[in-house]
Each structure stands twice: as C-alpha cells, then as structure tokens.
C-alpha cells in the first residue's frame, strides 16, 4: 500500500487535473448532447404528436343547443314560447363539501328535502368533470338576488340560465299542444344523439312530440379554450345552431278558450274543425293540467295528485276517450240507407216506442216511451227516432253499416299529425268472431243502428265525420299544423289517405243535411232550443251514450242514478249549412241528454266563430 506521506508531486497533480478537466468537459458536453437529442426528439421529431396533445388539453368541442321552434295559433298568438329560467347549480369540483354547499344555500333560499333528494339522484348519474348539477330550478327574482349578493361566500355554487318552454295558455292547450320535458335516457336512445348532445328538453306529448324533429333544429358547435380546471376562457370557433322551425297551428286561441270556458268544471271534450281544410280549430279536454309544471320536472306530490284524481285530468278525452257515438251516427246511417237502396225518402214506419225482431223476445225501446208515431228518415233524424233506425239497421246489416261508417273515418285515426288519437271501434262480423268468439246477431246490428253496443268513437272522429258531412262527402283529414316556417326537409306527417264519399244520388246529401238542420231549427228538432234566434242556419245531431246498461223492462231514471252513472251527452254539427265554416263534436261526460248539455256548447262555439269571421270579413272589406 502506498503511503500518503509521500511528497506531493505538484506537476503530476496538475497533469492529472488537466486530463480530468478535459474529461469533465467531455462529460458536460456529452450529457448536454443527450439533453439536446432528447429535446430534438420531443420538439422536432414528435412535435405534431405533442401539439395535438396540447390542443386536446385546451380545446374542447362543445355542442350548442338550438332554440326550439315556437308554436303560434292561427292568428299569430304565441302558444309555446322559450323563456329563460334560472337554476341554482352546484359544481362539485369547485365545492369543498357538497353537503356544506347545500346547507349554505338553504340558509338563503327555500330548499326542500325533495330538492335535495333529486339533487343526490342527479349527482349519481354519470357526468363530465366540472359539469354542474341542478339543485333548484325556476328561481324567482328574489331568490336570484339573494344568491347573487352572497355569491362570493358560496364556493362551487352558480346560477345558470337556460331557455325553457312556456305555455302561455297553460291548461287550456295542454291536451292539444302537449308539452316538453327533460329528456330521459330512453328518449335519447331513440333520437340522433349527436343532434341532441346539448338538448335538455324533448316533446313528450301532442304537437310538441309529433313535430319534435321540426321543432328541435340542428345542434351547433363551438370550440372553446379551457384551462386545467375546465373553465372556458374564450371561444375559438363557432358553428351556430339552426333553430327549430316555428309552427303555426290551425287552433284559434279565442275559440279554444271559449270551449274551455263552456265546459267549465264538467268532464268532457270539444273538437272543432274547419271543414274547408280539416284544420283543427279547437281541441279541448277537461279537466286539464298546467303543462308548465312538467317542463322542468313536476314534483311528486303534484304529480300524484293529478294521476290519482278521479276526474283523470291527464287523460286526453278528445283523442283517447272512446265513447259509444249514440244517435250522432244516425245521419251517416241514413245516408248509407239511402245510397244502398235499403230505404228511401218516402218510406215510413209507425213508432209505438217498441221494436221487436222475429223469433226474439227482446224488446228494443225508443228513448221516447210512448213513441213518435209516423216517422220517415227526415223526421227520424230530426227527432232522433230509434225505432226507424232499428229497422234500418236490421235491413242494412252490419257489413253495410260498417262500410258507410268507415267511409266517414270511424274505426281509424285519420288525423295527419296526431298519433296519440285512438282508433275507436267499428265492429264487424269478423271482429266479433275473433274477439268474442260468437256470431254477429241481428240484435247487435240494432244496437249499432242507434250508436250503442260495440261501437266506440272518439270526439275527434265525431268532429271529423261532421266535417266530412258538412263538405258533402269531400274528405278533409284533421290536422293541427297550418304552416311551418321554412325548413330543409319536408314536414313529415302520418301516411293515411281517405277517399271522398260519392253518393249515387248527390241530392241525398242535401236531404240528410236538411234533416240535421231540422234538428236545430225544426219545431220538433231535438236541439231546437240550441238553434233558436240564430242569424245563420246550422246542422246538428244530438246523441246520448249509455254508461250503464239498462236491463230489460227497466226505465232509465237520470235522477236516481248517481252522477257518474248518468249518460254521456253528445253533439255533432256544423254551421252555417251553406258554405260551412266550422264542424264540431262535443261530449259532456255524464251530462245526461245531448240536447241539454252538449248542444248549447256547440251553439255557443258556432256563434263565437261565425260572428268572429263576420267581424273580420267586415274589417277586411273596409280596408
């Protein structure tokens, strides 16, 4: 081992040191080269890769929801508007403690346990980082002000504005326009998810649902620059969304309001159609509900109250209510009888109040116990004689009756833009065999002849038939949409076509319509009290639909039956007789007779509409 005590060799030390310094310099240059190669690799060779990563970090493509198309009535009255609503939201990433945040808002505004329950439910759903979660929607101005004032203390809490649907007529249009609501996963699966990527609402019912694709519009996009905490700093690029198409409906808000008013607290439905176009002027079902409650989500208590109400406010009677049409189909059957040659204008019967088939003990009664006496088709319609129609039904048979009723649209949904409407029921032999497993008996035909028995129809079908009658067989299919603002695609409607009804003798139309006019204006017309003192002539037919079956030999006593077992009152009609402007169907559930509770409503609507038209004609001619 060498000793450390050797004399220091300064020159050798210097030589070694110089060599080592050169090595150190090479060491430095070598490592620096390694760094430079690394930087070259990152910054020049792989620059594009990292540029992409960097852009991905900061740039986000955000969808922008298109503004939903507005819905107007035929006069330009706004029925469905988009109004800003304000919600208090929590962004969990910014809030230190979500429960504390809720508690701090609770000190300022009213937050119910249900709000919190729903908030927690929304929190559990999958969401993007920094996506806000709604705590309470539809804040009023006072609540907004209170939150804004204390904004600085509320970490992670924000007020968010969005456009939400507002229905200016509220419950009056709930059953015709329908409503939108927050889109759910099932609905999202059924639409083009890309186009709905920024959309919160979707049409759930009515026009809103049927014309969803027209009303929705096309999603827009913006490229935004965000920082690491996902705050949007600026918009880099923007493709504006295409707003949805504005729709103008045939509905007349004044007439709609009038119908609601006339029905009042009664359960019922009114459908009014413009015979020249098939445009639905009025579509009312009472009782109704406020559609605005459903837009941002109805609370459970209000919803269960609506759902459990005996009056079924959520049930759309005008489209889904299926009632026996009663005597309202007599004009159609009369027309069919004439056209098929089963009866003629001269033929008459003697009505003693009873009708019996051969080999059948059952007695078929007239609504008028003592009978009407001598009756031909004209007077049978005017006075709603049942016996004549028992006879006619027997002679026509089910096949013939079904054919003519079908020509008038019974048994199917003929509307162009209402998919919720039910088909009703137009019975045939085949139907009865298939469903009941029994043959069609002549007695079934008799019941059908006065609109009872198996046959069911909706108020919309009755109004449509009334409009076709007013047009003397020219078909107009009912539709809510009058016109839509310009759009890229043609409007999609239901594919269904009805053929105009041709009579062998076209004068039969006038004969039947005259009879219907006699209902309103004749001395013995069943609705003469509703036809009185009119400046125009109208045509109509009353009807009564049994709710409970009356046993053989029993007498119907409205007083004795409880209110909900009373008959439904029906009325169809149109006015004026010449050049008709409006055709209606009215049903008042448990209203008793059609002449007493349904016909007056129709008369009031006729007046409203015809006088209004006259007034607007006057102003037009003055101009």
């Amino acid at each position, binding site marked *: 081992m060498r*000793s450390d005590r050797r004399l*220091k060799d300064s020159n050798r*030390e210097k030589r070694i*040191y110089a060599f*080592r310094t050169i090595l150190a310099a090479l060491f*430095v240059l070598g490592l620096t080269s390694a760094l430079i190669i690394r930087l070259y690799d990152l*910054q020049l060779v792989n*620059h594009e890769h990292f540029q992409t990563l960097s852009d991905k970090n900061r740039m986000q493509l955000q969808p922008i929801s298109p503004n939903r198309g507005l819905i107007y009535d035929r006069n330009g009255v706004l029925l469905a508007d988009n109004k800003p609503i304000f919600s208090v939201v929590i962004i969990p990433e910014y809030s230190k403690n979500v429960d504390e945040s809720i508690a701090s808002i609770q000190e300022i505004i009213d937050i119910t346990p249900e709000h919190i329950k729903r908030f927690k439910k929304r929190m559990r759903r999958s969401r993007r980082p920094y996506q806000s979660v709604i705590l309470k929607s539809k804040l009023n101005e006072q609540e907004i002000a209170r939150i804004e004032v204390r904004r600085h203390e509320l970490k992670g809490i924000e007020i968010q504005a969005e456009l939400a649907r507002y229905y200016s007529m509220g419950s009056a249009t709930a059953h015709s326009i329908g409503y939108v609501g927050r889109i759910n996963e099932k609905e999202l699966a059924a639409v083009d998810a890309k186009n709905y990527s920024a959309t919160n609402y979707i049409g759930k019912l009515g026009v809103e649902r049927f014309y969803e694709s027209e009303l929705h519009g096309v999603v827009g996009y913006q490229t935004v620059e965000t920082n690491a905490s996902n705050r949007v700093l600026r918009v880099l690029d923007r493709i504006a969304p295409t707003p949805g198409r504005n729709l103008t409906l045939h509905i007349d808000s004044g007439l709609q309001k009038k119908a609601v008013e006339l029905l009042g607290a009664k359960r019922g439905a009114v459908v009014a159609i413009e015979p020249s176009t098939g445009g639905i002027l009025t579509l009312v079902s009472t009782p109704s509900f406020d559609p605005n409650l459903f837009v941002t989500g109805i609370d459970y208590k209000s919803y269960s109250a609506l759902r459990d109400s005996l009056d079924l406010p959520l049930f759309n009677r005008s489209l889904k209510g299926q009632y026996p049409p009663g005597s309202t189909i007599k004009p159609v059957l009369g027309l069919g009888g004439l056209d098929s040659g089963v009866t003629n204008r001269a033929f008459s019967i003697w009505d003693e109040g009873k009708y019996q088939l051969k080999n059948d003990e059952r007695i078929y009664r007239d609504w008028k116990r003592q009978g009407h006496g001598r009756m031909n088709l004209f007077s049978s319609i005017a006075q709603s004689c049942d016996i004549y129609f028992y006879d006619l039904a027997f002679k026509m048979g089910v096949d013939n009756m079904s054919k003519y009723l079908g020509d008038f649209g019974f048994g199917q949904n003929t509307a162009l833009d209402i998919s919720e409407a039910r088909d009703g029921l137009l019975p045939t032999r085949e139907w009865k065999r298939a469903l009941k497993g029994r043959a069609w008996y002549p007695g079934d035909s008799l019941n059908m002849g006065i609109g009872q028995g198996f046959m069911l129809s909706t108020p919309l079908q009755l109004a449509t038939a009334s409009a076709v009658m007013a047009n003397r067989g020219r078909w107009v299919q009912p539709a809510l949409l009058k016109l839509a603002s310009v759009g890229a695609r043609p409007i999609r409607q239901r594919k269904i076509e009805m053929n105009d009804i041709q009579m062998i003798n076209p004068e039969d139309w006038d004969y039947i319509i005259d009879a219907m006019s006699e209902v309103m204006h004749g001395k013995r017309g069943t609705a003469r009290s509703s036809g009185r003192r009119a400046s125009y002539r109208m045509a109509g037919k009353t009807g009564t639909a049994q709710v409970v079956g009356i046993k053989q030999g029993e007498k119907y006593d409205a007083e004795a039956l409880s209110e909900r077992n009373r008959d439904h009152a029906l009325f169809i009609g149109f006015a004026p007789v010449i050049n008709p402007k409006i055709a209606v169907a009215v049903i008042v559930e448990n209203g008793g007779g059609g002449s007493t509770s349904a016909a007056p409503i129709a008369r009031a609507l006729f007046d409203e509409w015809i006088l209004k038209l006259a007034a607007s004609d006057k102003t037009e001619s003055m101009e």
Partner: protein
Amino acid sequence: MSQDFLRQMPGAESHLKQSQGLAFRLHLDPILLGLLLVLCTIGLGILYSASGQSMVHVEKQLVRFGLAFFVMFVFAQLDPIVYKRWSPWLFGLGVLALVGVLVFGTGAKGAQRWLQLPGGLPRVQPSEFMKLVVPMMVAWFLSSRYLPPSLKAVLGALLLIFLPVLLIVKQPDLGTSILIAASGVFVLMFAGISWRLVAGFGALIAGFAPVMWMFFMREYQKQRVLTFLDPESDPLGSGWNIIQSKTAIGSGGLWGKGWLEGTQSQLDFLPESHTDFIIAVCAEEFGFMGVLGLLLLYLLIVFRGLYIAVKAQDSYGRILAGSLTLTFFVYIFVNIGMVSGILPVVGVPLPLVSYGGTSAVTLMAAFGVLMSIHTHRKMLSR
C-alpha cells in the same frame, strides 16, 4: 499578440492593469458575473410567464437575487485559505445540524428539512449549507494528501461524503442528496481517483441499488421511479406531471409559441410550472432554439467555471472549483432530464431560473467561492 500590441502603446498596459485591478480588488470575475446577470435576467422573464404573469413572484425573486448576489460578493472576498481552514469545522457543524434536523426538524409534505434556530433566529436548511461544505471538506481532506489518492484516502473521502448524504436521504430529500453526493464524487474525480477504483465502486453501487430500493427508499420515491419508467400507467396521478411537461416541451416545436403564449403553462395544465418544471415553460414558449440558447448560456458558465478551476493555484482550490462547477451542471442536467422524461422526477430546481430563494443563494455562494479562488492569487506560485 494582443499583449505585444498593448505594450507598444504607452499607458495602455497600466490602463489594462487598472481595469483588471478593479475587478480583482473587488474579487469578482467580470465574465462569470456578466453571464450570471444575463442568466438571472432571462430567468426572471421566464418566471413572469411561468407564474401566470405574476409581478409579485418576479419582485420576490428579484429580492432573492439581490440577496444571492450579495452573498456571492461576500464569499468572493474571503481568501480560499479561510475556506480550507474552516472546512472541517463547518463540516462538523453541518453534520450536527443534519442530525438536529432529523431530531427536531420541521417541514412540510412529510419531509423534515428545516431547523428552527433558538432565540428568534430564522430557520435554516442545513442540507443547502452542506452543498457547499461537503465538497470543501472532501477537497480539504484530499488536497493535504498525496494525489492521486490512495484507496484509504478514497474510502475516507467516501465516508465524509456519505455520512451527510445518508442523513439527507433520511429527511427525505433525494434531489439534494444526489447533488451533494455528486459534488463529493466530483472532488474525488478531480483529485485523480484511479479508474480501477471508479469501476469497482460503480459495480458496488449497481449491486447496492436493489438494497436501496428495498430498505432506504420511501414509497413516494419508489413511485416516482416507477412513474418515470412508465408515465402512462397513471396518467392522472403521478404520471400527470411528466406527461404534461413532455406535452409542453414537444408542442413548443422549433421556435415555440411565443412569450406568454404557452397554452400548457398559461392554462395551468403544467404543474409546478414556476418551480421545478420551469424549463418546460421555456421550451413551450421559446421552442427548441430557446432551450438551446439557455443551454449555451449554462455551458458558458460551466466552462468559465472549469477555466477558473484549471487556473487555480493550489490543489484545494482546483478540485473545489471543479467540483462546484460540475455540481452546477448536474443541477441543469438532472432538472432538464427529469422534466423532459429521461430521468426520474427528483426535486431539483433549474439553477437561477426556478422560483425559490434557497437554491439561488447557495448557488451564488458557490460562484462566490469560485471568484474567491480566481481572484486571491499568491505571487509566490508564479
């Protein structure tokens, strides 16, 4: 030749001497000082951008630089002989302080690095102090012996190096311990340690590494190494930093996105952007050329340091100056290496650019020592 030319001009030589004399009288090296001032100025510019354009950070850093230059000036005034004489005493004090840190220390994030002095005195970070004292001590130990050092001397020197290093690893502070170990080893290298010994110790360390892994490294340190080996394994957790810094560097391209225009740093995607990861900001905003420029500046400083070391008059000054200079380079290499993903993440700041006062003061103190070695010349040796 220039000297010949100067000699022909009357009064020129005295003028030259006078100007040299002014720097010498102040014991400053004008070249090194100039380079450092340029570096600090550039550093402040990058810091302004990296801190999210915060003048507060820049002003604070400016005050620290002022203090650091003052410390450099003071250290430059002391004769190297003083450092040599005081080396063992300072070393002993430092080791005691490090033991004190482990016993009484305070700190943050699970690491104890600070020692609170009694009687209202400020708290100190003994490991920073040791960055200077360990190379001084090893240089003192070896320079008084026959060089190149014998095995015994080398073992003694290694003991002097690894006693404080282990104490610092214990804190734990991997970055500082690496720097101190490196500074000690550099002293040995400059002292002329034989290559056979270097190879032997290299093999020993390679064998010792698994033992280090199993017994000495903390969980978070292991995590860093694992993350370094595969940053994509945990892209949102510990891999986030390195992925973001690579993205920042790579997206800078040749010329960069421009000052204050770096999206990674300005939009907070780059963590620690104004401290350890500040080179990524520079690379993003000034591109490959910008980093190349900064590296060139660093190299000039390093080569000036090596020049001073070569010109030193005695072996103590020589090997100390060489070691301090190379340690400065190790700062740069480890920092840029870790930020660009070729080294694991250890907490080493980028000298005089990263925000923070402690390392700035220590570094400038080291440059003060270099200047002291350069400017305190004995006539005897000529």
